[in-house]
């Protein structure tokens, strides 16, 4: 070392450096500190496995029919429905559709919300003004009636129509959060420093600001998944669903008719919905703490 100012303590500085994989492990280690977060992660994992491996795990095919309206027993853990199908298998297959609805709608929300929030927050001015007024209008309208009207406008009853409508109705909150993050981060010294090094606007948006709001986006996305699963179930329950995709909402709608006598038909899909929602919320909460880069020390 030629520089007289260089410190000499080289050996002391050989400290442990985590690799990328280890860093993921560190997030997990932080997540593990909270029992509730681990419970949430466990539930999400169980639901995800149930959805992915439904054809393997399910004891009966969804088309299989036996004697109808049987109460829970060893053969049919959650009983059978009005058409004699196995409720447990139906719930497993329903997880596929419900989870798909949640993830697809969140993805749509992310794309729209991120684009609008980022343009609004970073560029500001008239564009921001116009975009935010549109956002306000959507936020002012009550969600459920808006969803019902929007779904009813389509001639086809399809799960994809529901996803599309929910994503289009659901983005304003994400856009608001992304916008506010952009507003504060674009003023930060490191963005200033990046600009002073000659970085372009797009480079600053995607390379310097986006990674810093990633954890916020992941947390909101995680917490919004059950929200969409719930709304799909609600829409289906109210008769705006897609009967050809047996989501948990469809099961609830059918089970509702037997609420007084065959309680298992509505209870088990309801519980599945409840636990999934709880799981995603707990997991999202835990992630919020675990993902904070600057808090890793």
């Amino acid at each position, binding site marked *: 070392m030629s520089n007289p100012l260089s410190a000499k303590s080289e050996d002391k500085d050989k400290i442990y*450096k985590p690799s990328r994989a280890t860093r993921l492990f560190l997030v997990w280690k932080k997540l593990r500190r909270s029992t509730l977060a681990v419970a949430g992660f466990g539930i999400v994992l169980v639901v995800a496995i149930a959805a992915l491996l439904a054809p393997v795990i399910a004891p009966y095919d969804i088309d299989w029919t036996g004697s109808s309206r049987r109460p829970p027993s060893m053969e049919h853990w959650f009983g059978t429905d009005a058409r004699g199908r196995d409720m447990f298998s139906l719930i497993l297959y329903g997880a596929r559709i419900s989870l798909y609805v949640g993830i697809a709608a969140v993805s749509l929300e992310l794309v729209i919300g991120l684009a609008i929030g980022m343009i609004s927050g970073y560029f500001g001015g008239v564009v921001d003004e116009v975009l935010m007024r549109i956002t306000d209008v959507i936020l002012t309208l009550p969600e459920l009636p808006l969803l019902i009207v929007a779904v009813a406008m389509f001639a086809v009853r399809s799960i994809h129509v529901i996803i599309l409508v929910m994503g289009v109705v659901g983005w304003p909150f994400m856009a608001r959060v992304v916008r506010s993050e952009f507003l504060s981060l674009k003023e930060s010294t490191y963005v200033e420093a990046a600009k002073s090094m000659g970085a372009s606007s797009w480079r600053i948006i995607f390379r310097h600001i986006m990674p810093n709001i990633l954890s916020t986006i992941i947390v909101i996305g995680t917490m919004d998944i059950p929200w969409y699963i719930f709304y799909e179930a609600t829409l289906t329950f109210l008769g705006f669903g897609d009967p050809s995709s047996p989501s948990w909402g469809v099961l609830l709608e059918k089970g509702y008719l037997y609420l007084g006598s065959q309680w298992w038909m509505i209870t088990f899909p309801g519980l599945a919905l409840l636990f999934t929602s709880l799981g995603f919320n707990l997991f999202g909460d835990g992630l919020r703490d675990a993902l904070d880069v600057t808090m890793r020390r």
Partner: protein
Amino acid sequence: MSESLLNVNDLKTYYYLAEGVVKAVDRVNLKIGYGEALGLVGESGCGKSTLGFSVMRLIRHPGRIVGGEVFFEGEDLLKKSEAEMRNIRGGRIAMIFQNPMSSMNPVYTVENQIAEAIKLHQEIPKDGIKGKVVDILDKVGIPSPEERMKDYPHEYSGGMLQRAMIAMALSCNPELLIADEPTTNLDVTIQAQILELMKILRKEFGASILLIGHDLGVISELSDKVAVMYAGKVVEYSDLTGVFEKTKHPYTQALFESVPRLDVETERLHIIRGTVPRLINPPSGCRFHPRCDHAMKICSEQEPPLFKIGKKHEVACFLYR
């Protein structure tokens, strides 16, 4: 080509607020020669940082450069396109900031960020970049740079981060380095180290420096010339000895009297009476006259131009008419 590297003529940068127009930089003239270091001193809010950002054309809304010229090697930066400016920023003019702890992006390693700066301005084969990062970090005195460059900014101390920032700024051999209070947030021993480092690097890289600060001691360490700013105006401009030993402007004199001294026993610290005027509605005439002990009738009526009183000494005060 002009004889100076940076030539600021009649620069005006105003902030358009709801309450009115803040003339943060009002018809300022400055020159920085090749290899020269200019110290820009003044109280907080006198427009010195705004001047630095104006040269980089990084003034944010609601601020705007409304007039003047900024010649950099004979070319007016204010007439450049945004794309041309991006090439100049970082490549030919670089900047370091007041708060090193927040000047680096927390999600990338130090190596990653310096490499990005190099990639933006230089055509270097991929495998050459890493060596360059190690080199420059070694030059600024980061111990075992090959290891430490893989650290995240929060794993560095404030002093080390400022070294890393200097490394990033110098990575593309800029001709001008704008240092906006580079030592303000560091403690005194680190301050001395950073100043020492800047002195060494100045010799090695030969870059001109615009050193912005309010600490007269820091300014005197590094500068060849000094410009004193008050309320958006340059009030005194001279070489180092001119300002520090033959201080002329009443404001500059008052500034020096306000510096706490250990060798003289005093009851209280000297203060300049009054406060820096709000720039939305600055005092008429000389902006310092309401606080000046030598104020005359003309001071409130006319704005003093810069009077040349020595070979390299200019003062904006009617006392030296």
